[in-house]
């Protein structure tokens, strides 16, 4: 599978936001990060298989994760004051899709990394998703190489 496509350069730095504590699921699995540097990730996907595989991959890389099933839930979780270092946002979601959710998060002032996730190879689809405010778009499935690329962005 292709690695990240259409990765935008980050503008205005990539600082972790000092915000209220986020509601995280317990971390399981071994970590490739030190205890002093555990990143948090929000997985936005309505497919249980995708949720579980992405969560497992992220846990093995030392992330703490939370999963929501649609764009509206993603917007709500940030509205409630939660924060994450990175969001992995599926493009085609029920209730509110990933493109709209990304636009709303950016309009709310959410500055964390948001990576779009899709199985679509349509340049038109990917371009629309990127223009919503993504930091990059990843062709599914997520894997360790793609997570490492995300980690590099986080650690800058």
């Amino acid at each position, binding site marked *: *599978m292709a690695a990240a496509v259409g990765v935008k350069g980050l503008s205005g730095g990539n600082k972790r936001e000092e915000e209220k504590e986020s509601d995280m699921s317990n971390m*399981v699995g071994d970590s490739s990060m030190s205890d002093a540097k555990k990143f948090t990730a929000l997985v936005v996907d309505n497919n249980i*298989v*995708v949720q*579980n*595989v992405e969560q497992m991959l992220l846990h093995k890389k030392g992330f703490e994760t939370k999963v929501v099933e649609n764009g509206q839930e993603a917007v709500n979780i940030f509205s409630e004051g939660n924060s994450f270092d990175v969001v992995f946002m599926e493009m085609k979601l029920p209730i509110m899709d990933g493109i709209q959710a990304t636009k709303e998060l950016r309009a709310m002032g959410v500055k964390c990394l948001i990576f779009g996730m899709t*199985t679509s190879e349509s340049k038109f689809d990917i371009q629309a998703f990127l223009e919503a405010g993504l930091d990059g778009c990843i062709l*599914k499935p*997520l*894997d360790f190489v793609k997570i490492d690329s995300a980690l590099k962005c986080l650690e800058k």
Partner: protein
Amino acid sequence: MNSRVVEMQNKYAEYAISLIAQGIMDDQFNRVQNMQDNSNPNFLSEILSSYLGDMPKLIHSLALDLQQQYVDFVKLDKTIHNIKGSSSSIGAICVLNACNAFVACCKEQDIEGCFKCWEQTSNAFALVKLKLEALLILEQQIRAAGGIVPKPVGY
């Protein structure tokens, strides 16, 4: 080590390799197998069972949508996208490939083409189901004999 367990482990490993050699699964399947460890000993069977349980409903939903008087191609596309997502996550490349053809027909609003693609997707899933269920049985047999499920070589 119990020679029977070793024999079952070898059979499992060869079977898993053959799924990739036959183009039914791809390297993502190796990665998913490798995620299973002492802290998550049932990860593979849970993920595969989720996939095998979820897919029939999605495929059936596609059939119902195609039989509507006015086919909603946007809805169809979303369901196919969902199937692609879960299939790519476990490495079910033959289902993913069938879905790619389906997406193309959907985009052209080619109903006849969509019906053919639905059949191909359905057949591809039936094959994956058969193979993965056999693999899960082998896994159960290894565990029942007190053995450890082997990981793919090179991971």
